[in-house]
């Protein structure tokens, strides 16, 4: 462990010392030590499996069954390790508040937001329900949910992800805790929402002089917010210190690796851009039918994609960015010929795409898709060779027997896996390897276009860098074009030639990627780019 800054021992709000955690005999945390002071933000950064979330749960001792915890967690002088369950209940929510990653599921769906925020107040005693509701109201105002729009009797399902996260924050800060722990509080949110939530957290730390522990996988997020930084890997702290020092010196090799992977730009030198159009989308309209308001009234429609036109050239990598709900996925489904469109034309190599069974297999064969979730997109009962061979049902004279095995071996090797992996089951692979298999599955029938729908969003930064490199190299060897859909602007910037910006079903801007990022014209694009957290160079 390298400590860049050693003079921050005094006046600690929270002092964690030699914390060890194992779950069912498996070591999770290894002698973790750090301090946080009042009014200070400590960022804990690490990739999945680094133990960063478990560190947070260890402080509150909200751990899974079979956990054994040792070491010292001192909160304002009170030792929490060995404290009784009822003492811990008094601490949780009152002295320490906590915010979680997934705002969509963190709230009880059958209780109003007022009840849920007020519960923090009256569960700790001493106030009436009415007084607790009053505190709830004030707290919701403080996190930017004013009474006019967000009355106490609203339910979670009526709010967006960002609004729900504000409710979770309100629950955590209602009693003005001395320490706030935020576990990936913005990971599930759009960039502009992320910027707003981070601003709220920052303001609350200043107003209440709380200590804040901000846990994230994204170095750029903490770089702008945190005062101190802890870098974790495999349950160990590899480096800690002041944020400037850590990011400037990058003393530990892992810190450097993490830093480089975060801003990784794959080498795309040899790409052969053409101006032959491969995919043409012209005036595309896609309406969703809404539930009727009156029984026999007319149907109402929601226009998810509104008059969208663009072209994708052979050999090109085209980015599509926009926030959740803007119509990105609907557009993807229409291009893949999965949904009937209500207007416009989609053509690939001049042939029209439609969602009908009349769409020729030869046309379907030209495009393949890679989805976000490397865990959910495979049938766990099939071996890799069967999973990868799946698209061959689009091919009339598909190879069989040894020829098929040879094709699968070749495609697995081209994505950096071994031919022998074909006989394994999907659970034997890590997230990054699974995404390679998903790419192999897309490549196996040699499509012209691969649609990457948030294909690297669920991956750790170092794995993401490898997958981006792989994608960049495949363009040449396999004569591919990409439609790269992502909410992550920095990734889109690193891998695409041109970019489309989508908002509320419409394309608001399109152009060469660098030009759009350096000189965004549309105010929406400007706000998107401004909201992206930046790593210092």
């Amino acid at each position, binding site marked *: 462990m390298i400590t860049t800054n050693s003079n921050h021992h005094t006046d600690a709000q929270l002092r964690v010392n030699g914390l060890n955690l194992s779950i069912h005999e498996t070591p999770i945390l290894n002698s973790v030590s750090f301090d946080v002071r009042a009014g200070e933000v400590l960022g804990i950064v690490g990739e999945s499996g680094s133990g960063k979330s478990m560190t947070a749960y260890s402080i*509150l001792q*909200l751990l899974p069954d079979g956990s054994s915890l040792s070491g010292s967690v001192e909160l304002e002088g009170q030792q929490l390790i060995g404290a009784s*369950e*009822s003492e811990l*209940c*008094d*601490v*949780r*929510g*009152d002295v320490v*508040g*906590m915010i*979680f990653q*997934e705002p969509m*599921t*963190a*709230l*009880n*769906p*059958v*209780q109003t937001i007022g009840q849920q925020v007020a*519960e*923090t107040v009256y*569960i*700790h005693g001493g106030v009436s329900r009415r007084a607790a509701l009053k505190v709830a109201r004030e707290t919701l105002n403080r996190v930017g949910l004013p009474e006019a729009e967000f009355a106490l009797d609203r*339910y979670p*399902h*009526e709010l967006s992800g960002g609004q729900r996260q504000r409710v*979770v924050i309100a*629950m*955590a800060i209602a009693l003005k805790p001395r320490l706030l722990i935020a576990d990936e509080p913005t990971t599930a949110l759009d960039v502009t929402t992320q910027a707003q939530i981070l601003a709220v957290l920052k303001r609350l730390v200043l107003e209440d002089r709380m200590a804040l522990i901000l846990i994230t996988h994204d170095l750029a997020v903490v770089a702008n917010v945190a005062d101190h930084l802890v870098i974790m890997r495999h349950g160990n702290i590899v480096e800690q210190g002041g944020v400037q020092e850590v990011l400037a010196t990058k003393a530990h090799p892992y810190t450097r690796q993490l830093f480089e992977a975060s801003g990784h730009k794959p080498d795309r030198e040899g790409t052969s851009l053409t101006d032959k159009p491969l995919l043409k989308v012209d005036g595309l309209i896609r309406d969703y039918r809404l*539930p009727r308001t009156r*029984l026999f009234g007319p149907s109402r429609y929601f226009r998810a994609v509104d008059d969208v036109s663009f072209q994708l050239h052979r050999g090109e990598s085209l980015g599509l960015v926009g926030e959740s709900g803007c119509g990105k996925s609907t557009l993807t489904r229409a291009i893949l010929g999965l949904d009937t469109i209500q207007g416009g034309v989609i053509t690939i190599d001049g042939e029209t795409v439609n969602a009908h069974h009349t769409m020729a297999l030869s046309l379907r064969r030209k495009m393949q898709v890679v989805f976000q979730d490397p865990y959910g997109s495979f049938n766990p009962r099939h071996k890799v060779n069967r999973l990868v061979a799946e698209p061959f049902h689009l091919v009339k004279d598909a190879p069989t027997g040894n020829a098929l095995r040879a094709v699968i071996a070749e495609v697995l090797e081209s994505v950096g896996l071994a031919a022998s992996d074909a006989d394994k089951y999907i659970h034997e692979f890590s997230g990054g390897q699974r995404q390679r298999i998903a790419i192999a599955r897309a490549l196996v029938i040699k499509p012209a276009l691969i649609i990457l729908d948030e294909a690297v969003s669920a991956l750790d930064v170092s794995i993401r860098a490898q997958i981006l490199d792989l994608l960049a190299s495949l363009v040449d060897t396999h004569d591919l074009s990409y439609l790269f859909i992502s909410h992550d602007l920095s990734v889109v910037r690193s891998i695409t030639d041109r970019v489309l910006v989508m908002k509320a079903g419409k394309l608001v801007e399109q152009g060469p990627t660098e030009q759009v990022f350096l000189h965004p014209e549309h105010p929406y694009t400007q706000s998107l780019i401004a909201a992206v957290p930046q790593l210092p160079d």
Partner: protein
Amino acid sequence: MLRYILKRALSLVLSLVVASILIFVTIEIVPGDPASYMLGLNAQPDTIENLRRELGLDKTPVARYLSWVGGLVQGDFGTSYTYRTPVADMVADRLMVSLPLALYALLLSTAIAFPVGVLAATRRGSVADWSVMGTTQLGIAIPNFWFALLLVLVFAINLRWFSAGGFPGWEAGFFAGLKALTLPAVALALPQASILSRVMRSSLLDTLDEDYIRTARAKGLSRRQALWRHALRNAMIPVLTILGLQFSFLLAGAIIIENVFFLPGLGRLVFQAITQRDLIVVESVVMLLVFAVVLITFLVDVAYALVDPRLRQQA
């Protein structure tokens, strides 16, 4: 909420219309002439002709259907051919036994299943959980008529706490009636309580794994508080579904238990009517049971909406 209820109510009415047509068609039209069927093979032609007229079979099917449904709506279920009494009175008598019995059994089953399910879920993997799982497995496996006979043997014949069967009627007093229904209700409730406990347990376990339970714990709620305040209501949807199905079953499917305890219930009425080919009774009772099932489904739907605000607004 109101819109949701109206929508459900409309679907209730539509289900009833469809069911009544189906019942009418299968019973009155498909198997040939009901009158000759009811009178058997040796009936005289003029007797059959009389019955045909009495049943209104000389009219068109549509007119017969309309007059049948019209009668049902006004509470006129026709006259039993075998007993020569209005079907409505017979059914009302039987309902006075079957409905309380079903409610009694359901109440027992719920009263057992809730605490048992909660106990097993909160102490997952403990001895208590294992014994609940074992016992409920047994409760589902044991045929309820056998269990009923066992109850009679122990509580009626050996201990003499209850009578072995029969129903004195509510005129004998509320508690006398209740007492007579106790053993049958226990026999009916055992398998239902076993199923319901298991549903309660697994539903609660699923809910306890939800993120919002973790959020509640981070607010400072104890495990027990998180369970009562947040998990229980969310776990209710599957439990309500099963509860609705069980009530329908208890109302119509208690025939074996009614026979074991010599109870004059609806199940026995249908059974007797079928053996005596009294189609008028069969038709009306089946329609009544359909009505009960559809009504219960409606009530369960309304209960869903009370539990879950997302359903209230979906409409």
